[in-house]
């Protein structure tokens, strides 16, 4: 029965049915095949209550904020700011891409949204200055993974709600790893720069630097308010998203004056539909997880895992390798929703810090956006930057390898992750 179910599962996926629906369909099929028809009676309520979680409210709100900032002209100002700061080095525009991505990451929470925004802006600029287009696209794609690592972060929010871990603590834990990723990418570019002789731009005058700084400050109000507001107890991590929306509107209306109020309904609709791609996945993955719980698979997994190893270090290595494989095939959030309930009992049993664990698996699954055959980041950038899929896969490969090595450092030096939240007493 189990093998039949798995075979149908794979068939449905290959047929190209949305992953969210596949999860729901396979659950229903399993209930029917196993004569558990009465579970169908409880399925609609189970779908409803999968979203009964305060933490999930941050998803639409951070998305709305991203929409507002994008309409309000934030991307170009952040890029301009990064450009006057470091554009004059050899390979300057490549660094600008990474640094602008780090700035944008402190505002956005989703790698895919960021990859879409940045590839529209950066790839044409870099190409004009003489970079190969696939190189420009691969840097944009690789640096987009910083978006969910530096707070705010959609995937941390979902992990936090699934595992009952403080979202505020997760946000703080992402800061150092996010900066490390940025610096490592800059290092990789400078190493490549020696070999490939990258172009550089003119050094900006002091006047231009000041003007650009002045222009970017209102935008940077958002991450500052979010961090300060959370630490000062004005609002929770979830509520910070709503406050960020308010600031984004004020900045877009009064500072940049590019925000068109008539566009707000359109932004609201696109916020909801983007949110629903995540929440539908959560709904369906939840009934799928319910089926797994009913079959006592988490308990079986815990028992068999503990019979293999009782070392948290070995366990974490196994998890990292397994997730790398899972990430090749599944969307990050879908994988997270399926796996967290299964893995958490082991995390508790092995005494691993749930914040540390969360950061590791979230980064690992975010890397899945860059890995073929199924990588939404790859799809988005290859279509937006007009680079062939295979070409993009090849040119982003070195970044994937480096990213995984960094991930292993974060896994085995927990303080890199836990230093900030510990310092803040979280």
């Amino acid at each position: 029965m189990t093998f039949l179910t798995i075979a149908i599962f794979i068939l449905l996926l290959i047929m190209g049915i949305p992953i969210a629906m596949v999860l729901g369909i396979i659950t229903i099929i399993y209930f029917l095949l196993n004569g558990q028809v009465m579970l169908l009676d409880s399925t609609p309520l189970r779908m409803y209550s999968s979203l009964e979680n305060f933490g999930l409210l941050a998803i639409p709100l951070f998305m709305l904020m991203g929409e507002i900032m994008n309409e309000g002209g934030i991307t170009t100002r952040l890029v301009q700011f990064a450009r006057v700061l470091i554009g004059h080095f050899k390979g300057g525009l490549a660094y600008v891409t990474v640094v602008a991505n780090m700035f944008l990451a402190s505002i956005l929470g989703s790698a895919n949204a960021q990859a879409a925004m940045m590839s529209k802006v950066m790839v044409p600029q870099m190409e004009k200055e003489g970079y190969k287009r696939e190189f420009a696209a691969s840097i944009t794609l690789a640096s987009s993974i910083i978006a969910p690592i530096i707070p705010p972060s959609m995937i941390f929010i979902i992990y936090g709600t699934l595992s009952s871990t403080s979202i505020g603590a997760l946000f703080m834990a992402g800061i150092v790893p996010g900066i490390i990723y940025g610096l490592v990418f800059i290092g990789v570019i400078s190493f490549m720069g020696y070999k490939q002789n990258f172009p550089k731009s003119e050094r900006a005058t002091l006047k231009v630097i000041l003007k650009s700084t002045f222009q970017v400050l209102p935008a940077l109000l958002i991450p500052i308010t979010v961090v300060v507001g959370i630490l000062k107890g004005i609002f929770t991590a979830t509520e910070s998203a709503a406050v960020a929306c308010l600031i984004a509107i004020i900045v877009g209306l009064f500072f940049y004056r590019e925000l068109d109020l008539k566009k707000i309904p359109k932004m609201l609709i696109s916020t909801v539909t983007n949110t629903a791609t995540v929440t539908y996945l959560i709904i369906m993955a939840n009934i799928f997880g319910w089926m797994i719980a009913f079959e006592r698979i988490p308990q079986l997994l815990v028992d068999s895992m503990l019979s293999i190893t009782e070392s948290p270090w070995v366990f974490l290595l196994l998890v990292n390798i397994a997730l790398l494989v899972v990430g090749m095939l599944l969307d990050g959030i879908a994988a997270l929703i399926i796996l967290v309930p299964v893995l958490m009992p082991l995390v508790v049993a092995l005494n691993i810090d749930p914040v540390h664990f969360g950061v590791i698996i979230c980064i690992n699954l975010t890397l899945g956006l860059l890995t073929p055959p199924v990588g939404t980041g790859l799809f988005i950038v290859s279509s937006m930057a007009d680079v062939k899929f295979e070409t993009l896969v090849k040119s982003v490969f070195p970044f994937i390898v480096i990213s995984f090595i960094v991930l292993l450092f974060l896994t085995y030096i927990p303080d890199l992750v836990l230093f900030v939240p510990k310092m803040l007493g979280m």
Partner: protein
Amino acid sequence: MVQLLTKFSNLLTKLEEIIMTILMGALAILMIVAVCFRYFLKDPIPWAGEVSIFLLIWTSFIGGSWGLKYGTQASVTFLYDAISDNKKRWLRSAQDLTMIVFLGILIYYAINWMMLPSMLIQKSSALQIPMWIPYSAVPMGLIFAFVHILTRFINNLVNGEPEVVEKVEGGVS
């Protein structure tokens, strides 16, 4: 008949967009107001969290239906990309038929659930409003999605074209 169904599906889409705009706007405003009430007025709104969640759930089921119509949900596409246009048409039909059956089953059970005698006695914990109001997001969203996909399926059979082809940036990881 096909045209009528298509019209109906498009009408539902308009309705969905209106619902999404209003509820999402309300959600953003409510959360900001809730923070202000607690921090500045020192008087938290005890039902703010509960109502926000109702709004999230309603928008999710309605937005999910809209997303199924426009194909914004992530899927594995290598088979679809590899085959000829004629075969694509059949694959699309197979996808839609599978989803129609699935949604049909869910709708049947969702309506049964809404009809349970216990439905009328359940009230929300903070505001004490009847739970059938937030709960009905489930059958409603599923029925809307069912109409959209059925329309697309029939259009595909009759005209060989999906009703709408629009590329939307998907995924939020």
